[in-house]
């Protein structure tokens, strides 16, 4: 494989383009200068840092180091998914982190042991880390969108849910509508990207492979596999988190515990 290695000077040229954003912000008084500066610095520092970490992980090439990195990545994804949720309930942290964990690890394991059957070791960082990254990124989006929709609908449509209960509905029958809506909302982004993949834009991973000199036909095979892996991880994670929260919001006696749903600000104060 052959590709042009970038010098820091070349990266610097690209970075200068942030001045375009800055100029627009100043010209139209958007007040984004400070955010742009912070965002630029974070991009540089965070990526340099992860570059250093990955460099040493790749050199070390031990299963426990890779597992450690994957675990940290998963925790960060889980925490981020909760933070994006506008309503909280007791147990949301455990439910969400568990959903992110189980879905992304199960599908990544399937990818490493079944789809990529033939790699030297399952824990090869070259495969395990980027695969997990893609699972987590998409699962995180699915969960936060799906869970947000579920908790918000359950809260605002509480009177409909309760009316169903008073007419003899089971807890499942009473909340089935909001659950379906939440799962559809959570899975729509990945379905949409499967619809347009290759037509409007090339996915990041495929672009990366092409830049690194991989044959387009090879890069495409990887991308197809990844799309399906990501779609199933998203579905598993979204369904898991919504179903776990459903169990927290109802008792075994089919009673709806609406007061458990609190706005993020209120829940954080407690």
């Amino acid at each position, binding site marked *: 494989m052959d590709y042009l290695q970038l010098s820091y000077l070349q990266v610097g040229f690209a970075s200068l383009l942030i001045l375009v954003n800055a100029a627009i912000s100043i010209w139209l008084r958007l007040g984004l200068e400070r955010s742009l500066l912070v965002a630029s610095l974070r991009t540089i520092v965070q990526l340099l840092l992860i570059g250093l970490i990955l460099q040493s992980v790749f050199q070390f090439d031990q299963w426990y180091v890779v597992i450690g990195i994957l675990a940290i990545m998963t925790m960060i994804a889980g925490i981020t998914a909760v933070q994006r949720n506008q309503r909280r309930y007791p147990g949301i942290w455990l439910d969400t982190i568990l959903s992110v964990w189980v879905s992304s690890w199960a599908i990544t394991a399937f990818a490493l042991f079944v789809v990529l059957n033939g790699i030297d070791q399952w824990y090869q960082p070259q495969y395990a880390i980027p695969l997990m990254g893609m699972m987590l990124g998409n699962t995180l989006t699915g969960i936060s969108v799906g869970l947000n929709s579920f908790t918000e609908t359950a809260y605002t449509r509480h*009177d*409909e849910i*309760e*009316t*169903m*209960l*008073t*007419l*003899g*509905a*089971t807890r499942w*029958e009473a909340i089935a509508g909001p659950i379906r809506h939440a799962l559809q909302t959570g899975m729509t982004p990945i379905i949409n990207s499967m619809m347009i993949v290759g037509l409007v834009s090339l996915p990041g991973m495929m672009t990366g492979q092409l830049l690194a000199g991989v044959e387009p036909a090879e890069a495409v095979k990887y991308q197809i596999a990844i799309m399906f892996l990501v779609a199933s991880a998203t579905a598993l994670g979204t369904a898991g988190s919504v179903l776990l929260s459903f169990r927290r919001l109802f*008792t*075994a*006696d*089919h*009673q709806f*515990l609406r007061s458990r749903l609190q706005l993020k600000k209120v829940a954080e104060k407690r």
Partner: protein
Amino acid sequence: MNATPIIGIEDLSRRTSDGEILLAPTRLDVFPGDRLAIVGKSGSGKTLLLRSLAALDPVQSGELRFLGQTVHGNQVPPYRTDVVYLPQRPVLFEGTVESNLQLPFQLKSNAGRNYDRQKIMKWLETLGRDASFLSKNHENLSGGEMQIVALLRAIQLDPQVLLLDEPTAALDEGLTASVEQLVDCWFEAAKQQAALVWITHSMNQAERICDTLYRVDAGRLSPPEPNPRGE
């Protein structure tokens, strides 16, 4: 009086997480043929009591029994078709009056039972309404009409107990009379096998509709007072 109450609660209580009493340990039996009124100030615990009878809220202690048997777990949904709670503000779902009336029959608890249009029509006729009411969209109903639909939706299930939480609080005299008339029709048809518990702010209404009166104050239920109707 029949020996077994339809519903009975024993030492049922609720507190806030700070320990404040919402409902002190309460005992109440509802027998076939009972017409109970519950009166009390706002916030005294009337609604909590009624919701507890419908098993809608978790309780800290005590027991709810239906025909002598404790109600819990998966017995709760079918129980709620025998003991139906009607809230102050009726909730209808998108669609026509008739689709709202058909809704309960799509639930597992009502499997094997079918929507009976004739039964509904009979009730509507007593209120002076015709079949065109059934095809009205829920958005075009007044508050009182919505309450009538919610009441029809409840009584068509032939409940053994109807729990009414101030259903006429926001209605004018005419619609209040319609609601009372409909409840009477259902009660008479049940031939002393059913019972009703009605929360009201109006002593006049309590006198019109109930035989026994309970007062609730600061989460405590007073002993029953006879309240002969029509005297």
